[in-house]
């Protein structure tokens, strides 16, 4: 957005207009509030009076009450705290894998769409190859494979999960950005800049890319929602983030044995995933509506 701030006055208003349009979408506004609450809750998880790992085995399976808002699990651990910490994992993985995925996707898509020719062919063939991977299968294999390597940096399973999710989702932003570049590079302002002697890099970064921000942001929200669901799915299967780190997916997995004894252990993680993803989806929807009419026209 900084390029826009430094730009002529009518473009400055665009940012304001986009924001206004966004909040016109009422639910998106609510969604932002919800997400903000979730993020804050995760960030300040350590303010909870209970630690997610403190065990009180004699206190196990307490129904949700005033001391334990979400009840306790089989080891007497406070489920609410575990959910808060689990939120950290989900949001972290969601955020970082999305950043990584978009970074990779933009790189590939921009180069592909801008230069065309054999660069495009090669990059697109690689993208196609990745697109034909049956994602879940490859994720499981990668998860298992990378964790079995005993290199020290791989011991952090959160990093591993972030990397493998990004590695299998960069293709969509890549295609999107490529498509956008294919259209935008034909625009007059590009020809003009080239005529004035602008380098490729300058052109890509300063002129074309800013116009892609809208669709990229929208795509980013979808990616993040999907990443959160994928991470929890992997943890549920046992191939994601490793215990004892609580994650929404792994709490759900252990809750399977206690579905009838203590349904709240299984209910809350699923519910949290649901709320988070809903919020993100609505934000994406709001962003799509906010950016829609403006993206192509402003730079004319």
């Amino acid at each position: 957005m900084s390029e826009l701030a430094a730009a002529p006055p009518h473009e400055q208003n665009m940012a304001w207009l986009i924001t206004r349009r966004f909040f016109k979408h009422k639910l998106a506004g609510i969604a932002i509030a919800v997400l903000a609450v979730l993020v804050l809750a995760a960030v300040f998880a350590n303010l909870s009076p209970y630690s997610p790992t403190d065990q009180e085995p004699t206190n196990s399976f307490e129904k949700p009450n005033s001391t334990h808002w979400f009840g306790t699990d089989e080891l007497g651990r406070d489920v609410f705290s575990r959910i808060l910490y689990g939120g950290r994992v989900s949001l972290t993985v969601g955020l970082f894998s999305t950043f990584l995925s978009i970074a990779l996707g933009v790189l590939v898509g921009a180069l592909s769409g801008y230069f065309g020719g054999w660069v495009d062919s090669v990059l697109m063939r690689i993208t196609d190859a990745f697109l034909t991977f049956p994602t879940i299968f490859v994720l499981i294999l990668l998860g298992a494979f990378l964790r079995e390597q005993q290199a020290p940096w791989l011991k952090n399973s959160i990093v591993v999960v972030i990397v493998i999710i990004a590695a299998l989702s960069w293709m969509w932003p890549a295609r999107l950005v490529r498509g956008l570049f294919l259209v935008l590079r034909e625009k007059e302002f590009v020809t003009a800049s080239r005529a004035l002697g602008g380098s490729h890099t300058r052109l890509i970064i300063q002129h074309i890319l800013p116009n892609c921000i809208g669709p990229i942001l929208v795509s980013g929200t979808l990616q993040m929602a999907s990443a959160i669901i994928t991470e929890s799915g992997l943890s549920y299967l046992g191939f994601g983030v490793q215990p004892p780190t609580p994650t929404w997916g792994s709490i759900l997995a252990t809750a399977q044995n206690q579905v009838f004894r203590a349904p709240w252990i299984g209910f809350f993680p699923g519910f949290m995933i649901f709320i988070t993803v809903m919020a993100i989806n609505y934000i994406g929807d709001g962003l799509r509506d906010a950016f829609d009419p403006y993206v192509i026209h402003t730079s004319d």
Partner: protein
Amino acid sequence: MTTYAIRRVLQTIPILFIISVLLFIMVRSAPGGPLTAARRNPNISKEQIEAIEEKLGLNDPLPVQYGRWLGDMFKGDMGESIKFRRPVSEMINERIPNTLLLVGVSFLVTLLIAIPIGIWSARKPYSPFDYTVTTVTFIGQSIPVYWLGLGLIVIFYVTLKNPFSGEPFFPVGGMNTRGKEGEFLDTLWHLALPVTALSMGWVAWYSRFLRSSMLDVLHEDYIRTARAKGMKEQMVHYKHALQNAILPLVTLVALDLPSLFAGALFVETIFSWPGMGRLFWDAAKGRDYPVLLGVVMITATLIIVCNILADLAYGWLDPRVKYE
């Protein structure tokens, strides 16, 4: 068109090759193997395990193993499951129809629900109906499949009971009740819960997509022209807009195939559905390499085939698109 098709097919061969090499390296260079569970058994001597691993050729250098595997693949032989001692192709053949059935029916149900919803909400965007539908579909898209599956079991198999017979509404798993294998109605009954779990997410996705793609089309100039010509609103809506909005949907469906299998995997596990996803999952746990490789290669091939078909269908549906 045929040249295009052939060219596409040829282009996919290097892709499949690369995929196979990567997978092979990943799967086989991981430590441990199919006999690891055996190592824990106090009755089995380590020498026996080593001997068997040798016999299975698990100790040969990787390129050699890959070459052997590739050679066999060309002959149509996907090797033998190390755990079950059955040909991989046989095991996959048993499971593919089950997954296709599950995914196919879910798909059908999804389309039957999503298309009308997409059309209606595009007719009156931002109306209360639109918002309600959006909300409901967003809910469907945001619920994790496995959570939903568990919930469905708890509700429809445990909690609620059929007032007529006292039996649960829906079965908890498997494809058929014992003794009714292959019976169509019985299978359909067993499909009910898994299909519900699977299609909820897709309905959301497709109806939203159709809605936005129809909205895009409805703003196009030629629609205005048709309206100006005085055609009935309904006709305009359905005939022209839909035809053009369907096209991106076709592409979307093709691109979405890999996630088809993801959702199916969870559903197959929860509802004990004997499909490909389950096969992969069991094989992954047991490090049964031939099965893992076989399943992934077959799935990748299926995806590629569907992609090509989708492209061809796109070309056929949209006369503006020309393939050389």
